Each structure stands twice: as C-alpha cells, then as structure tokens.
C-alpha cells in the first residue's frame, strides 16, 4: 500500500506496529503530546516530564513513551516533508487503523503548525557554508619601491564564512585592484539579475 505521507512508499513496519499504541491514549491527550512533539521538531526542545504525565493514565512503560514520541515525530515530519495536506493525512492514518477522533486531533495540530514546521525543516536542509558578513576598505596606493608615483585605488575585502558543521566563523580576506573589482562586480550583478528572475 502506498502512502503519500511516506513519500508514495510503503509505510514502515514499526509505524504500523505503534499505531495501536497511539490508540491507547485518549484523543485529547494525543493532541497535547502532538503539540510537544511539534515544538521539538521546530528545535524548541521537548518537555519529557509533561509527556510522561500525559501518558501515565494509559500506564505506558518508558519504551512505549519513547515509541509514541518516535512515531509521532516520524508522521509529522514526513507529512511536512512531502507537503501532505491535513485531510489526506487524516484519511491515510485512518486507513492504517488510527481511530477517527485521534486522526482528526493529530491532523488539526499538524495543520496549525505546517508552515512553521516546513520553514524550520528548510533551514535545516544541507548547506555547506554560509556567508556571514562582508567588510571592505578602499585604499589609495601613493608610491612603491618600484615606481615613485603610483596613485591607484585598492579594495580590501573580508568575508566571514560560517562553516556548516561546527558553526565556526572563518575570515577570508583578499585585495582586489580597481579593474578586477569592476569585473567581479559586473559578474555578480549578472548572477543577481538571474536570481531575481527565478524567485
């Protein structure tokens, strides 16, 4: 069976197995747990104590609590990844065996937070480095050991690059003469114009 929220592939076995665990909690509590999991997926941290309190009625062991969090994280992040709308998600979850109120509750939480979730997933996508800042300085060379009257302008550029992995800032400095700088500027302007036509 192909599911849209799994990217048109089969649903993983462990997700199928844990749907029955989800059905054991009441649908109201499930919606609150969804809220916590959504906060975690957006990088705001998870309140494990609250989830333990919410699942204490259903007498979950620690393995069951972790399984619940894992399966909810998978369903919500996978649905956001494939841009599934909340009605399709609800019907697919009901096909998997999740009771109707649970599915509707889950999908309502998902619908509220779908855009912020997708935005945070977009920022977390693979990027090699970021340009953090640029600083520049224009000097005028008056004379040198080779020629007494030089009188040429010179641009110093410093790029601060943030490394993708470790978040460390690395400075990268270079000196550009006036003509080279004009060429650089012209090429970058062309690239900028092309980016504008695309966005």
């Amino acid at each position, binding site marked *: 069976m192909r599911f849209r929220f799994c990217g048109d592939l089969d649903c993983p076995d462990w997700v199928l197995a844990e749907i029955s665990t989800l059905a054991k909690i009441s649908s109201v509590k499930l919606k609150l747990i969804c809220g916590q999991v959504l906060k975690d997926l957006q990088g705001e941290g998870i309140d494990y104590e609250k989830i333990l309190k919410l699942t204490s009625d259903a007498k979950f062991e620690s393995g069951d609590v972790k399984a619940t969090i894992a399966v909810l994280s998978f369903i919500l992040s996978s649905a956001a990844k494939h841009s599934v709308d909340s009605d399709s998600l609800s019907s697919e979850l009901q096909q998997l065996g999740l009771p109707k109120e649970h599915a509707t509750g889950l999908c309502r939480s998902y619908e509220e937070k779908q855009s912020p979730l997708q935005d945070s997933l977009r920022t977390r*996508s*693979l*990027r*090699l480095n970021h340009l953090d800042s640029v600083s520049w300085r224009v000097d005028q060379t008056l004379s040198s050991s080779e020629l007494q009257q030089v009188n040429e302008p010179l641009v110093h550029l410093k790029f601060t690059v943030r490394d*993708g*992995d470790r978040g460390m800032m690395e400075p990268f400095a270079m000196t550009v003469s006036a003509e080279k700088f004009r060429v650089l500027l012209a*090429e970058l302007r062309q*690239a900028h114009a*092309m980016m504008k036509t*695309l966005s």
Partner: protein
Amino acid sequence: MLLVLSEEHKEHLGFLTQVDSAVVGEFGRIAVEFLRKGTNPKIYEGAARKLNVSSDVIQHGVEGLTYLLTEGSKLMISEIDFQDSVLVLGFSEELNKLLLQLYLDNRKEIRSILGELAPKLPSYHSLEWRLDVQLASRSLRQQIKPAVTIKLHLDQNGDQTTKILQTDPATLLHLIQQLEQALGEMKTNHCRRIVRNIK
C-alpha cells in the same frame, strides 16, 4: 595449549614467591584494575615502601601477572593448561591455586576488554542530501544540470568526521543499483550456506 613464558617473565614473576599469598591476591586485584582503567605508578611506590623492596620489582611483578592473565584470556586456555603453564614457575601449591582462581574469575571481563582493542574502520552514522539544478554559470547561461550533494557523517571510536560528495543522478542510480546487488548477494545459495554454518 601451553603458555610459554620467557626467562625474563619467569624472573619477574619469581618475586611473587617471596611474599605471602595475601599480597599476591592484592597484586592480582591491582593487575585487573590496571587492565580496566590504566596504570597508576603511585601504587607501585606505596607497595614498594610497605614491602621494603624497590618499586621496579613491584612493577615487574604486577606487569608479569597482567601479561600472564591477558595471554591466558587471549588464547582462552583451559584450567589444566593454565595450571601446567604456571607449574613451570615452581610456585607453591597455594600460589598456583590462587593464580588459577584469579584467571578464571577475570577471564570473561579481560576478553571483553581485549575485544575492544581491535582496529575499527569509520562506520556509518548518518546521511544528509540535497538536490540542486545548475541553471547558469559565468561561462554558460541557459543550462540544466542536476546534481545531488551528499554529506556523509562517519563515526570512528567516537570521533565524528564528515565527507562531502557530489554526483549527477545517473551515477547515483548506478550506485544504488550496485548497493542493491550487494544486498542481493546475501540471498544467494553460497551466502546462505555460510550463514547457516556460522549459526
């Protein structure tokens, strides 16, 4: 299989006959502790002062014991073989029994510590990927060149390294095909026979 002890080793262990069995038991405990956590030279000083000998002799004695235990555990020699190997040293009956007990008690633990010393290659930790399309470059406009950028996270003895790779979709498909073929090898008769025999 008997342990063959070198002359130097026998000399080092010879010191153990000159002290009483309680001290040998203590040395044995120190030897196992060193195998677990690493050596601590201060203990040699303390013991040397108490027994009125130089700390070198103590160090050799403890190291001799350690070597005896690790060689025995490595080769997984039986009780009888261990007893025969130790007999060569000419120790008293009581000392032999003590050494045998020390060996049998700690054999399993020493084997697990030795197992961790085997060289390990970097192993897979996680994978991030990104699909890009190159539309234009400084030299050529109006292009369409898809490329997949992959960041492979590897883990070696706790150190995390990353490798960044880039490929076009055709090579990626070829890669997937080769990996699926490799997985398929497990299902051939040849591999099945070997796996059955190992189990």
